[in-house]
């Protein structure tokens, strides 16, 4: 065994610290630990520094430990009256001095105040400061996370929950979009309307009803500044806490509803018990059928419970089903409308609902949908719930079709998603014999994210390239986008569009007629798999060809 300063040892240490280690690599690391005396110390130093670095880069409490006394471990019974010792630390303690609801509409623990009025007052002030500080910390963390949150959905190591369902969600911007099935690390979820269901890894289910601003903090911690939350906490998630600007709701194994607005916060207990703590006021324990509300003046009131606001799992399933039916209906209307557009010569669609899309054929619906044979492609998720697409994520994935005829002008519109630009050319569509026949086309996206449209001439050296500026930077990866190219013989121009906006136009001097014979979709070099790969590394929802130049308005409306 080599000494622990060897590169591979540090590589394994790094992998372990960041949770990216395989069982085989763990065995290698174990061998180092067994045979090298310093290996364990290096590993532990790395683990500790990982914790420290994470700590100093997170906005958090900076008070130092001003402790006195020993740090040795002592049995809990040293601190507990023997008559009251409860070995089950998590057993809920029944409050022996319950709160009373007074005539003026506030909660008060009078007996304790009467017993020790001065100390009580002092402790309340301390507690108020402490809880206010906690709220400031929550806000700070929320802002920092919002600014630096990673959009990479593959970070499953620190994932605490998964997006279980989405219904009619309206996101504030493309950067804040979450997808069904996406793993959630700590961070904010902000949306304007609709329903988002989260499933925590400890089994807790949360349904967020928009408009909502919700911050995921660990498996049992969250913060909500606005929104309606239905929570069904699993036994493993006991103690789940929803902090709000008005107070904190802590679960004691239950189902509950929380509504936070700009002016007040209410909580309804659907099942079990919750603790409702408001700064500077005693903690309130609510049980089945009870509801409480706190306003900006920290006045707590008992209010009638409204259990119908709570969205159960069953209710969520019902709404999902209704939403899917609605989307199906909208899709059908859109298809029928599309087929009335004049000049459409081929439309390959892969975006039907899951049950109707045929994996190996694009053909369904009306006669205008020509046939495209697909090879090596996989069925992927479409841009709308319940819809599908065809993924060209393998080197040898391609679609092939024949569109007979030669054309003066053509237009092509595609709705696609780029997952990564791994190849020098990432083909959208091309003639398989591009290099052999004049008038062949090759439309692709370069590694840098530029749209490139090639037209072949009589000789290979006479091929011309029309290249747009960068339109698909890394930040646009993973999002659905509509691209179009128009070869207009009338105006002698080549124009390219991105999401309906003209991004490029250049003069077109060639005179050959255009042809779409032996048309390849999503790839070009199928016979040279592994060499000069040109597969799309993304997915196509639909792609359509026209025998005329579409106007900008027609492209925008398509």
């Amino acid at each position: 065994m080599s000494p622990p300063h060897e590169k591979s040892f540090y590589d394994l240490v790094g992998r372990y610290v960041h949770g990216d280690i395989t069982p085989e690599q763990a065995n290698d690391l174990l061998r180092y630990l067994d045979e090298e005396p310093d290996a364990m110390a290096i590993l532990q130093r790395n683990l500790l520094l990982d914790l420290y670095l994470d700590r100093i880069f997170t906005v958090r409490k900076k008070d130092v430990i001003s402790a006195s006394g020993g740090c040795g471990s002592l049995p809990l019974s040293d601190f507990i009256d023997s008559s009251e010792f409860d070995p089950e630390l998590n057993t809920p303690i029944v409050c022996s001095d319950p709160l009373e609801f007074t005539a003026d509409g506030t909660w008060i623990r009078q007996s304790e105040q009467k017993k020790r009025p001065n100390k009580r007052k002092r402790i309340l002030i301390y507690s108020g400061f402490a809880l206010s500080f906690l709220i400031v910390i929550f806000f700070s963390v929320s802002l920092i996370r919002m600014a630096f949150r990673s959009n990479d959905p593959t970070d499953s190591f620190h994932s605490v929950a998964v997006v279980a369902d989405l219904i009619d969600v309206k996101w504030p911007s493309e950067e804040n979009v979450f997808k069904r099935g996406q793993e959630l690390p700590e961070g904010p979820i902000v949306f304007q309307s609709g329903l988002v269901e989260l499933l925590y890894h400890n089994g807790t289910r949360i349904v967020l009803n928009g408009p909502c601003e919700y911050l995921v903090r660990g498996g049992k911690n969250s913060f909500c500044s606005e929104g309606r939350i239905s929570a069904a906490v699993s036994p493993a998630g006991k103690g789940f806490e929803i902090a709000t600007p008005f107070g904190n709701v802590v679960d004691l194994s239950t189902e509950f509803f929380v509504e936070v607005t700009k002016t007040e916060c209410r909580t309804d207990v659907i099942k079990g018990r919750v603790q409702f703590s408001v700064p500077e006021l005693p903690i309130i324990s609510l049980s089945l059928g009870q509801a409480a509300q706190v306003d900006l003046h920290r006045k707590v009131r008992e209010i009638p419970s409204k259990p119908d606001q709570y969205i159960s799992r069953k209710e969520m399933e019902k709404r999902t089903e209704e939403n899917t039916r609605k989307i199906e209906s909208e899709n059908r209307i859109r298809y029928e409308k599309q087929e009335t557009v004049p000049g459409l010569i081929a439309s390959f669609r892969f975006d039907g609902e899951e049950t109707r899309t045929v994996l190996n054929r694009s053909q369904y619906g009306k006669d205008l949908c020509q046939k495209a044979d697909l090879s090596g492609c996989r069925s992927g998720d479409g841009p709308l719930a319940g819809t599908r697409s065809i993924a060209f994520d393998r080197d040898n994935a391609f679609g092939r079709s024949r569109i007979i005829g030669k054309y003066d002008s053509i237009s092509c519109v595609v709705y696609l998603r780029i997952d990564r630009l791994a190849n020098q050319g990432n083909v959208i569509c091309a003639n398989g014999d591009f290099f052999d026949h004049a008038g062949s086309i090759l439309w692709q996206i370069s590694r840098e994210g530029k749209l490139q449209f090639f037209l072949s001439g009589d000789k290979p050296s006479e091929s011309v390239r029309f290249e747009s500026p960068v339109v698909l930077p890394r930040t646009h990866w993973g999002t659905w986008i509509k691209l179009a190219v128009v070869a207009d013989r009338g105006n002698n121009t080549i124009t390219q569009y991105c999401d309906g906006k003209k991004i490029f136009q250049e003069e077109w001097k060639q005179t050959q007629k255009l042809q779409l014979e032996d048309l390849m979709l999503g790839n070009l070099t199928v016979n040279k798999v592994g060499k000069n790969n040109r597969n799309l590394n993304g997915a196509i929802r639909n792609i359509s060809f026209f025998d005329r130049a579409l106007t900008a308005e027609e492209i925008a409306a398509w």
Partner: protein
Amino acid sequence: MDELNTIRLTQDLATDLFLQNIDFIRSVAFESAPSRSLQEDIVHDVYVCLIENAGKWKYDESKKLALLRSITENMSARYWRSYISNLPESLRILAEKIQAAKETGILQADESENLKILALKLCMEKLSEPNRELVEMIYFGQKKYTDLTQETSKSLGALYTQMSRIRDSLYRCIEQKTKSEDENEPSA
């Protein structure tokens, strides 16, 4: 002071105690369950436990850290058992071995956590520009190693190796700084 030593731990006092000693609680949690992903949940459960049981405990200022250590160790043990039971065998053995290796004293929680954090901030300034940038990209920018391979044109293994060496050098720097500060303190 005598009066404080004899009172019961109320929920308000428990909150105060928790907030004042949250760094210590985190360190004990990491000592008992050395996995960063468990920290927040353990710390949260310590808080819930303090609140739920506050009325039953006597508050002794001189033994407050021992109380927090006992509760945190109790919580950590529960989380640790659950955590390692879900790991593949080789990873479980590795995790248990790291947790059991107390003789190094590296993960031992003590009252000087704040000094170490302070020293770390000073040590960060001594890192070379590329190394500091890498640390900031990973811990502040929360960038993924896979993304960084493209940005830095380095392999994944090279990045993990570089980051491990940086952490190791930072630890040595912290040791030196905390040691030299001890030595500089005037003797009684």
